[in-house]
């Protein structure tokens, strides 16, 4: 074997040994290190007697949370669905903290209760009642109703 052949073999072996470093990146997919498009959603379903409430807090990008509520009630064997979002929009002003919303059933079948803390810690929270028919009232605490086992919407 000539010196030239030996030298060529050595160079070829070296190239083959180092070929791993030239391999194309393995494509396992597209990594997502980017902000997720779409809202971030916190949701909670509370069942009180024959009615259900689906409460939703959603945020987009770094914006403030936005509250929605859909109410379901069985009436004469038919399920009615009521979107209460507009009514809550009127009630829950910027003074209240949606992140601190608590949900539960009101005692003695008075429907659903929603307690919204005030951003001002010394100010009164908002107490919202949703009756079994889906009507919305403010101030269930003044009516003497109590929420049973409230749960925070945003944990």
């Amino acid at each position, binding site marked *: 074997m000539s010196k030239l052949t030996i030298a060529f073999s050595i160079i070829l072996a070296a190239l083959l040994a180092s070929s791993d470093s030239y391999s194309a990146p393995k*494509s*396992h*997919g*597209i*990594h*997502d*290190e*980017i*902000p*997720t*498009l*779409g*809202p*971030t*959603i*916190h*949701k909670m*379903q509370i069942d009180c007697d024959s009615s*259900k409430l*689906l409460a*939703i807090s*959603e945020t*987009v*990008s770094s914006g403030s949370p*936005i509250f*929605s509520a*859909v109410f*379901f009630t069985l009436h004469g064997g038919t*399920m009615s*669905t*009521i*979107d209460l*979002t*507009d009514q809550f929009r009127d009630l829950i002003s910027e003074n209240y903290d949606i992140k601190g919303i608590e949900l539960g059933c009101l005692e003695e079948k008075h429907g659903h209760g929603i307690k919204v803390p005030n951003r001002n810690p010394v100010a009164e929270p908002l107490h919202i009642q949703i009756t079994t028919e889906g009507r919305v009232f403010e101030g269930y605490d003044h009516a003497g109703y109590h929420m049973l086992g409230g749960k925070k919407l945003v944990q």
Partner: protein
Amino acid sequence: MKTLEGCMDFIVVDLDQTWKAFQQPQNTYSANYTPQLSTHKLLKLAQTGCTLTPDECWTTGKKPPEPCTTFTFSGGKIGGDILGSSGIGEGAQTDPVEAEGDTEGESEEANNCIKEQGSERIKDTEARRIAQVIRGKNIKLEHGSILIDVGNGLIIALPPITGQSGAILTQQFIAQINNSGYEYGQIVGMVHSHPPSTEPDPSLASVSDSRNRAPSHSLTENAGDFAVAALFRDIAGIQGADTAAWTKRYTHYIIGPHGVLREYDGADPPKSIAETNTISEQDVQDAEKDAKGQCQNSQ
């Protein structure tokens, strides 16, 4: 009926009956025929080497020659029932092809002729129509349209809703659906746009736009397109819908940052997105063909 041994080991289809149905309007055919066979069975059928699958009857519009009058199916004979049991529109109401969850061996983005040329065809056509409407809107904002199965084999898109640059609030959709009077169980998908990235760094914008060809997802929060679909499913379930069937019928149609429509079937994220928030180029390409109504079996 004759049995053609060696041609079909898996399925019995009376093609005389199939041809009779094929002579009827196409909607009848797709509604009556397609949902009755599982994807798995039909894939097996196609793999047997017989050149006369029911699928080809569909795509070519030709009557199959005599030798393939009957296929055999190891689990029993399913000939006449294939064509006789469901009426027009049932295929859109309930789709056993999707509901069976019989997707073993398929890619994550299931793309096959059986669905594309059957019940999904109606949905895809409407999705493409509304996608064209959305493409005419401000590209910097997200626009979305919910697809509703209104019965009788018809699927309609609700008027597009415009959101922000990075999202449409679910409360906008909730308000629209409730005002429309449709049930959440009738939702079969959503067509929505992902605007081009506003990231000033071109390489980051490219990564962002590349990922946003598919439905969005977060590994750390309940966020993105799959979370929105899950919320709709929650409401559908409260209203009495079969959530498992709903999940399989739902389709995410994404108009990517460059305006290309892609179709991702199923409400929940596929494994790669659920586990690593990634999607392969192959799945992205399949999703594009899927939205165009192209499919692997007929290419």
